[in-house]
């Protein structure tokens, strides 16, 4: 799908999307064959591999574009670079149509593996890219599951590789077509058939490539991912004569690398927003550290501290041979005048604290709330980065007409009540097994559904009350519906928040 997506993305910038099915035509020997087909074309029965003349005979008004493998690969590398800056320090293009990401040590910054894949799928879909994602312990397995798995997003739990791979077809193993055909002749259909076979006869017949790719997919043989290194990337590399492993030694060399990096950044007038440390171990594995910064920085002490804070997450194994420090995202940083007035004290710089906290806990965990123009309480707030300005210009505070609770339950909890309809507060409520008699109440505050968001909300109404029980505890409760018309809601009661 990549060649099709790429062309449609390119076309989308300059012109409205063209109608009609699209295929990409390439050459196989002397024949012109279809190398990719858009979903519309596939619905019409066109398949990858059929000749172009046959496709034209089946569908008269077919758009045909010439295959351009060079441009596809270049665009794939640009996409890989985009992912490198956002997802993980080791990313590589896997031509013709894949990208491989080593997410070790990066997933916690995105809120876990499942959340990371979900966010990634969402981002790609927004950019108009049809993607299938798989996360597994080995490159081979992730490659196979992304292309031949049943679901569009697959996560293989650690240790579950063999079970996940067994039902996949032999093509999933990245083997030459001749080898796959030969194995088919011998009666092998799926990867599971190969797993328990004696290896010597297979190697004798098909060469060592078969057993090697099988082992790589099963995670028994290592397969390092060559990281993408775009041109102009500021990178400092240091190889050690003797492998290093002690945390103190690693910290010392991080300090030296950061110092060199900062000299280069200063020369170019740049500050770093994302910093990657790649440590190649003697056993041919790579350990990575990634730190993000809220504002561009090139202060060696601060960068060193952020990296050294995370040394505990590095596993040096038998020792680190090469350390590479990369400024993955660098932005212009020009000197600024520090104090504008001698009388006013300058606002303290919090970026250092925010960097420390967000690198330790994940960038999503440090945030600020901003107002959104919405009456529905749970939609009235949005999380923004701590140093960002307000999300919507002109919307910097919530309306102050009605009291709002200090704590809001993550989701409204159903309560039992006795209340007079349509617009009286309840006499008592039963919440979490405790009955509370309502002494006084304010309300209703009617909040209408946002019909422009969902059809279901076209008539929805919530009536909010602030109630106080005999002990003085104050709660925010609402009734779904206006108390008269069933179409406006179920008339069930919920508790939504607590006032101080």
């Amino acid at each position, binding site marked *: 799908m990549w060649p099709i997506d790429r062309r449609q993305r390119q076309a989308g910038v300059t012109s409205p999307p063209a109608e009609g099915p699209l295929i990409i035509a390439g050459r196989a020997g002397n024949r012109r064959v279809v190398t990719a087909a858009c979903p519309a074309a596939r619905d019409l029965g066109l398949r990858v591999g059929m000749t172009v003349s046959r496709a034209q005979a089946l569908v008269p008004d077919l758009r045909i574009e010439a295959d351009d493998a060079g441009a596809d690969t270049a665009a794939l590398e640009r996409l890989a670079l985009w992912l490198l800056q956002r997802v993980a320090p080791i990313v590589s293009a896997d031509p013709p149509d894949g990208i491989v990401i080593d997410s070790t040590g990066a997933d916690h910054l995105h809120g876990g593996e499942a959340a990371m894949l979900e966010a990634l799928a969402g981002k790609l879909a927004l950019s108009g890219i049809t993607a299938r994602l798989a996360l597994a312990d080995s490159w081979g397995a992730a490659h196979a599951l992304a292309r031949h798995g049943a679901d569009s997003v697959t996560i293989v739990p650690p240790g579950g590789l063999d079970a996940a791979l067994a039902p996949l077809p032999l093509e999933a193993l990245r083997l030459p077509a001749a080898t796959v055909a030969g194995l088919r002749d011998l009666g092998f259909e799926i990867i599971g058939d190969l797993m328990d076979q004696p290896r010597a006869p297979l190697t004798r017949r098909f060469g060592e490539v078969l057993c090697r790719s099988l082992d790589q997919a099963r995670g028994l043989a290592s397969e390092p991912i060559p990281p993408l290194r775009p041109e102009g990337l500021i990178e400092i590399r240091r190889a050690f004569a003797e492998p290093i492993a002690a945390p103190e030694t690693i910290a010392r060399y991080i300090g030296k690398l950061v110092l060199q990096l900062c000299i280069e950044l200063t020369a170019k007038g740049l500050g770093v927003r994302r910093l990657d440390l790649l440590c190649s171990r003697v056993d041919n594995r790579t350990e990575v550290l990634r730190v993000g910064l809220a504002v561009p920085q090139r202060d060696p002490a601060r960068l060193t501290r952020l990296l050294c804070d995370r040394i505990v997450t590095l596993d040096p194994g038998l020792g680190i041979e090469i350390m590479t420090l990369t400024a993955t995202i660098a932005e212009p940083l020009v000197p600024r005048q520090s104090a504008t007035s001698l009388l006013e004290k300058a606002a*303290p710089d919090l970026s250092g604290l925010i960097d420390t906290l967000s690198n330790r806990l994940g960038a999503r965990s440090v945030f600020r709330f901003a107002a959104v123009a919405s009456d529905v309480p749970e939609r009235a707030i949005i999380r923004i980065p701590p140093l960002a300005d307000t999300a919507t210009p002109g919307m910097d505070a*919530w309306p102050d007409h009605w009291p709002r609770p200090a704590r809001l339950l993550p989701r409204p909890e159903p309560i039992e009540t006795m209340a007079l309809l349509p617009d009286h507060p309840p006499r008592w409520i039963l919440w979490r097994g405790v009955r509370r008699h309502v002494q006084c109440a304010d309300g209703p505050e009617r909040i209408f559904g946002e019909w422009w968001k969902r059809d279901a909300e076209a008539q929805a109404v919530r009536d909010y009350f602030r109630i106080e029980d005999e002990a003085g*505890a104050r709660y925010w409760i609402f009734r779904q519906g206006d108390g008269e018309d069933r179409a406006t809601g179920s008339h069930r009661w919920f508790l939504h928040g607590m006032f*101080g």
Partner: protein
Amino acid sequence: MPAVRPALAELRARIGEIDGTGARQHGVLPFGVRELDRRLPQGGLSLGALHEVAGGGQGAVDGAAAACFVAGIAARMKGQVLWCVTQADLFAPGLAQVGLPPERVIHVEAGDDISVLAAMEEGLRHGGLAAVVGDVARLSMTASRRLHLAAKGSGTIGLALRRWRRQADASDFGQPTAAMTRWRVSELPSAPLPVPGVGRARWLVELIRARAGDSFDLELEACDGAGHLRLPADVADRSAAAAGGRHIAAG
């Protein structure tokens, strides 16, 4: 502090220096309620120290009144506030109504108590913040001592909002910590109105423990839009001597 006893004041200051209460270096934040301030050892909450606040009754679990009390204190300081929680359930419009607008609060959702304490310590050491607030359930002597020392070093006020998962766990509040003061804020029925409705919220504010000071309790009206507490009108009319049993020598 009454000016008529300069010798006593000087002695008190020297004791403060020796036991490291820190108020001398960093000053205090008065509540602006005379009844409350005159009973506090330094005439207010000392900056550069750790203070503990918990809710009473149901508030030990939901921590709503305690959050408003703490937000009111933070609102009266100048600058940014770091608020660390295990799971975000603060409602920013509610905080804005006690004087703490969203642009002044940086929230940290740390996931567990240990990370909350670490984030609080980081914030207290930074020194550029007005206040650091943390919702924690367990606060050991060691952890509170670390936080207190971090606060003392930078002059930032630390506020540990004690909040438990279950009501039964709230007995943990009796354990000693290094905090300078320990407060309990419980909700009381609101100010009576001549018409149906909920009046201004009232709290029973108890100072359970204060270093170099006596404990007391006081009924107060909750924070207004700028974070100020107020003495209810019917209590303010009573004579000061009747409201609390504190010796004049300590004031």
